[in-house]
């Protein structure tokens, strides 16, 4: 019998599998995609040091390490349910039910969609879809594209599309509305981009740094934002244009846009059409946590973490015995954080399994410290208030699941 099933072969899942296997546990990893690595395999950006972060190489390194430790990795397998049965978990997959004492859910993130008229036309895709098609499958998504939505992920993938020789013609905002929220308000978008630039003058943001670092823009805000936009790595970023509709008969032919005021309200009579053969919708990421919900794990909405996240401790435990989480399911952060969290979860599982005696406490403690260190050193944050989000979860955990340290002595005195 297996000791641990890891759901998701991304950075968190593979790192978790490695740490568990390293501690002597038998581990199986399940993933729906055709190869291991998760969304890490799409990532490609230059670090502050000038070195390239090549997600394919990083994934391969983790994959090889897991194989060396005899981790059983199954790709192309879906998990559709999991349930507790006594001390064990039954995990129902497309290759049958796997019964284990420990489950690590590392399902990562998905993208918030921003629906707009015409978005079902072939050629409209999430920005992540374009990333995977480009860097993983190496097929061009089109000749001339428009990105709808301006955020860190969109800029990172813009850069990747350009590296692959794909022309992104313009970046516009989604139309303001209940489904786009702040992503459709130029002033708010500008604020978040400036915040990101302030936090991370990294090569990733070098693409827009000239305008982002400019104090004049900070002070004057959106009022004087150039109508023709500012260039981000050569591509005009049009914060005062909103995408109203994707047009085309059988596939994308263009995007109808209109000018907006600083709040994102459409200015009537300013409509125009930009031609394009593909459109990427960049709505940002949210934790992909359905399986934790199916398992019965309680959730909390924490905006800074990207949405609803399962309750979890810093040791990556959930309130459900034997169920652990790691990576973007716990909050949207970088692949490096996911690896560090995965390692933490892996040692945490080993500790619960009674492996490795005193050493495991030291390993687990170090892994937790490592997560904090990497977060501090991070060149880029999806959400600049990530620390505050993490703190909220850890306070919640303390309040709900940890007994006060002096509880026993108090009782004795009573």
């Amino acid at each position: 019998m297996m000791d641990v099933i890891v759901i998701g072969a991304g950075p968190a899942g593979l790192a978790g599998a490695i740490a568990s296997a390293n501690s002597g546990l038998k581990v199986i990893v399940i993933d729906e995609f055709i190869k291991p690595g998760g969304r890490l395999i799409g990532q490609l950006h230059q670090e502050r040091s000038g070195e390239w972060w090549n997600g394919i190489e990083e994934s391969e390194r983790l994959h090889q390490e897991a194989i060396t430790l005899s981790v059983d990795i199954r790709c192309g397998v879906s998990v559709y349910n999991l349930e507790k049965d006594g001390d064990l978990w039954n995990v129902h997959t497309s290759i049958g039910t796997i019964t284990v004492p420990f489950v690590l859910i590392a399902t990562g993130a998905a993208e918030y969609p921003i629906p707009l008229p015409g978005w079902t036309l072939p050629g409209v895709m999430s920005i992540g879809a374009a990333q995977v098609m480009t860097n993983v499958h190496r097929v061009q998504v089109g000749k001339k594209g428009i990105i709808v939505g301006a955020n860190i992920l969109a800029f990172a993938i813009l850069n990747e599309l350009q590296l692959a020789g794909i022309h992104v013609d313009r970046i516009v905002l989604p139309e303001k509305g209940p489904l786009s929220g702040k992503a459709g308000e130029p002033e708010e978008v500008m604020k978040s981009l400036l915040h990101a630039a302030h936090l991370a003058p990294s090569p990733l943001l070098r693409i827009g740094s000239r305008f982002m670092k400019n104090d004049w823009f900070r002070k004057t805000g959106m009022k004087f934002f150039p109508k023709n936009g500012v260039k981000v790595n050569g591509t005009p970023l049009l914060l005062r244009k909103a995408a109203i509709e994707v047009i085309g008969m059988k596939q994308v032919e263009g995007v109808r846009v209109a000018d907006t005021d600083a709040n994102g309200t459409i200015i009537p009579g300013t409509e125009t059409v930009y031609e394009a053969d593909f459109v990427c919708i960049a709505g940002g990421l949210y934790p992909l946590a359905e399986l934790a919900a199916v398992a019965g794990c309680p959730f909390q909405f924490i905006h800074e973490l990207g949405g609803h996240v399962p309750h979890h401790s810093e040791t990556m435990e959930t309130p459900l015995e034997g169920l652990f989480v790691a990576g973007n399911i716990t909050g949207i952060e970088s692949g490096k954080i996911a690896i560090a969290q995965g390692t933490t979860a892996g040692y945490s599982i080993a500790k619960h399994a009674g492996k490795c005696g005193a050493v495991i406490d030291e390993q687990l403690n170090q892994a937790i410290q490592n997560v904090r260190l990497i977060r501090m050193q991070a060149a880029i944050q999806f959400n600049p208030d990530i620390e505050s989000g993490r703190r909220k979860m850890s306070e919640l955990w303390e309040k709900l699941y940890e007994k006060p340290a002096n509880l026993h002595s108090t009782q004795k005195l009573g």
Partner: protein
Amino acid sequence: MTRIMDHPILGKLNDRKAIPFTFDGKTYEALENETVAAALLANGIRTLRIHEESGTPRGVYCNIGHCMECRVTVNDQANVRACLTVVEQHMVIESGKQHPTIVKRMVEQQ
């Protein structure tokens, strides 16, 4: 669409065997170990199905298995996600078709 043969950071595309498959009765070539979605796009095909009720075209949206927009029929198995399925030799792939909406038509006629 074109394949990205040469990439400044990721290097050249590995030499891979070309394998034949059919889509809606026509034969195309995929590269070994690539998904149905990638192989079809590389052959210039964006429309993977039409909506069951409205008949409007649909293609790949998320490309990683969440959105279910890219469902096709593979070797007679319906509702298979093109973005998660590896093309195999002589695979028979059919696009999703419009379904009859008899009740709706009846209601409309009343």
